[in-house]
C-alpha cells in the first residue's frame, strides 16, 4: 500500500531529518536510527521495506550493518549514502544487495525519486500489482485469483479503512475489515466503487475465516447490492427514460444548419458536425455524405467521451473535472471537438495548414452561440403517433424479410 516503511540510518541529525521530512512528504512512513547497532535492533523488532543507510558512521560501519540486516531480512531493499563518492564501498554495498546509492549532498527530490524507483522494481520482482477499483473491479480481481488458484494477499484502502483478502487453492480463505472477519466482509467490500489496492502473490493466509465457495459469495453479494440499489431508485423509476428526449424544432434546426455552414467557411474546414454525447448525428456541413457523417458522429462522440473518461480516471479526490475539448491529429488534417451544453458536441475537421488557435476561436464562438439558442428552446412536448410503433415493427419485418 501507500506508506511503505523506510528506516533511515545516519549519525548526522540534519541529513536524517531532511530525509525523513522528504520521505513523509511523499507519503512514506520513515523512522530514524542514529547508528548501526540501533538500526539492527530496529530490524529485529519490525519489518521495513527499505533501508537508507550512510556508509560512513562511527561504530559499526554501514557495510557491516547492511550485511547483518540483509541476513535478518533478505527482502529488504537498500539505498546507501556515500559522502565523497567512495566508489569502492558503493560497489561493495551493491554486491551485498543494495540497489542504489546517493552521493552527498543530495536533496529531498533526488532521494524520493531514488526511493520510488527502487521500491517500484522491488514490487515488480515481488509479484505485486497495484491499482484502483475504479479501473479493475473487485469481482474481476477475485475471479482471476481464484481461477488461477493463486496464493495471494489483496489489500484495499477505502476512505480511511483497510481490508485484506487472502486467496489459496482457488478460494478466498480469509477476509478482514477493521474488526470484522469472515464471509460477511464481502458484502461491504463489493459496494466499494473505488479504493487503492495492492495484490501480492505468495503471501500465506494468517488464518482461515471463510469456508463458502467464492463464486457463491460474490453472486450473493452482487445480488444484495442490486436489490438495495433497486429499492433506492424504484420510486422514481416509473415511466422515465434515461435522458429527456432531445427534440429540435424546424426553426432551431435551420439556425444550427446555418451556423454550421458559417463555421465551415470561417475555418475553411473539410466538414463540421454536431452530434450528441451518445454519438447521434444532429447535423453536418461539408464534403461528406450522410452515411459518412453518421459514422463520423459515432466515432467523434466515442472519442470525446473517452477523453471525458480519462478526466474521470485522473480526477483527484473531491475534484471533478470534465474535458470540454478534444483534439485528434492526423498527418494532414485534425479534428477539434468542443462541448455544447451537457449533451451535444461540435466537431470541426480542418487541414493542418490552418492554425489551431484560429479553429479554436471560431469553434468556441459558434458553440457559445448555439448553446444560447438551444437554451431558449423549451423542450417541446412530444406527441408521437400511437401507430408509429406498429409501423416501425412492420418496417423491420419488411427489412429483414420476415
Amino acid at each position, binding site marked *: 500500500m501507500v506508506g511503505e516503511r523506510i528506516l533511515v540510518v545516519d549519525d548526522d541529525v540534519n541529513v536524517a531529518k531532511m530525509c525523513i521530512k522528504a520521505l513523509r512528504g511523499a507519503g512514506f512512513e520513515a523512522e530514524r536510527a542514529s547508528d548501526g547497532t540501533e538500526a539492527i535492533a530496529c530490524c529485529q523488532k519490525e519489518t521495513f521495506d527499505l533501508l537508507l543507510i550512510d556508509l560512513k558512521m562511527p561504530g559499526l560501519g554501514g557495510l557491516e550493518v547492511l550485511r547483518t540486516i540483509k541476513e535478518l531480512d533478505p527482502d529488504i531493499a537498500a539505498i546507501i549514502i556515500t559522502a565523497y563518492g567512495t566508489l569502492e564501498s558503493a560497489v561493495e554495498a551493491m554486491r551485498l544487495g543494495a540497489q542504489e546509492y546517493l552521493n552527498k549532498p543530495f536533496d529531498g527530490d533526488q532521494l524520493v525519486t531514488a526511493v520510488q524507483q527502487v521500491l517500484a522494481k522491488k514490487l515488480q520482482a515481488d509479484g505485486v500489482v497495484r491499482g484502483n477499483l*475504479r*479501473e*479493475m*473491479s473487485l*469481482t*474481476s480481481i477475485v*475471479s482471476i485469483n481464484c481461477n488461477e488458484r493463486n496464493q495471494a494477499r489483496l489489500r484495499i484502502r477505502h476512505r480511511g479503512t483497510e481490508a485484506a483478502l487472502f486467496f489459496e487453492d482457488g478460494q478466498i480463505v480469509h477476509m478482514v475489515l477493521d474488526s470484522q472477519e469472515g464471509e460477511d466482509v464481502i458484502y461491504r467490500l463489493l459496494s466499494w*466503487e473505488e479504493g487503492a489496492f495492492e495484490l501480492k502473490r505468495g503471501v500465506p493466509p494468517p488464518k482461515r475465516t471463510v469456508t463458502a465457495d467464492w*463464486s457463491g459469495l*460474490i*453472486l450473493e453479494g*452482487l*445480488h444484495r447490492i*442490486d436489490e438495495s440499489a*433497486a429499492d433506492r*431508485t424504484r420510486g*422514481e423509476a416509473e*415511466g*422515465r*427514460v*434515461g*435522458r429527456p*428526449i*432531445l*427534440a*429540435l*424544432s*424546424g426553426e432551431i*434546426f*435551420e439556425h444550427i444548419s446555418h451556423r454550421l455552414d458559417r463555421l465551415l467557411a470561417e475555418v475553411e474546414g473539410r466538414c463540421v458536425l454536431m452530434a450528441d*454525447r*451518445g*454519438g*447521434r448525428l*444532429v*447535423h453536418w456541413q461539408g464534403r461528406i455524405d450522410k*452515411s459518412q457523417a*453518421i459514422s463520423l458522429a*459515432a*466515432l467523434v*462522440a*466515442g472519442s470525446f467521451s*473517452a477523453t*471525458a*473518461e480519462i478526466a*474521470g480516471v485522473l480526477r483527484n479526490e473531491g475534484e471533478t473535472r470534465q474535458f470540454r475539448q478534444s483534439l485528434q491529429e492526423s498527418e494532414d488534417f485534425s479534428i477539434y471537438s468542443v462541448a455544447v451544453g451537457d449533451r451535444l458536441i461540435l466537431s470541426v475537421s480542418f487541414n493542418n495548414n490552418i492554425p489551431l488557435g484560429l479553429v479554436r476561436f471560431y469553434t468556441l464562438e459558434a458553440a457559445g452561440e448555439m448553446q444560447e439558442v438551444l437554451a431558449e428552446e423549451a423542450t417541446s412536448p*412530444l406527441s*408521437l*403517433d400511437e401507430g*408509429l*410503433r406498429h*409501423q*416501425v*415493427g412492420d*418496417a*423491420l419485418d*419488411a*427489412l*429483414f*424479410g420476415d
Partner: protein
Amino acid sequence: MYINWRLREIDIKIVYYGPPCSGKTTNLEQIHAKLAGQQSKLISLKTQGDRTLLFDFLPLEIGECKGLKPRLNLYTVPGQSIYVSTRRLVLEEVDGIVFVADSQRSRLQENIQAMHEMGRHLRSFGYCPQAIPLVLQFNKRDLPDLSPVATLQQHLAPSNDIPYCEAVATQGIGITATLKQIVNLVLTKM
C-alpha cells in the same frame, strides 16, 4: 433519443451489453448480413493491437413510418477489456439495452457480474436502470450444458416483466426478434 422535426428524423440508440464473448458482435454482424443491399456499414473502432475494442457500431435506417424516418444506432460494448471505463462510455445517451447473456452453465456468474456492472454504469450517468428499456437475449442455445431459461431469468431479470429471447446468434436465430422487441419497447416507453 433525438428527434429532428425539420427532417422528421427520430434517432434511437440501442446498446448490446453483456459479458465477454457472449455474442454481441455476432448479433450486429448477423443484422448487417441480413441487410444486403442497404448502404449501412458496420464499424469497429479498435485501439491499436486489436482486442481492446472501443465499440462496434451499425446505423440502420428503416424508411418512413407515420411521416417520421426512424434511425437505429446499434452499438456493442467491448467485452474483452478488463477496464471498466471503456464499457461505460458506450452507454451514454442510451435509449434501450439488449443484454446478451451466454447461456452456458459455466458462464452464469459472468453474466450476473456484467449485469451488475451495467447497473452501476447507468447509475453513474444519473439514469435509473429500471427505467431503461431492456430485453434479455439468452444466446448460444445450441451448446450443451445450458442454464435453464428460468434460471437465467431469475438471476438476470431485474423484474418479472423483462422480455427475453432465446437465440443462436451464429445461425442468425432470434436475432431480429430481439431487435424488434427492444425497438418496440423503446417506442412504447417513450
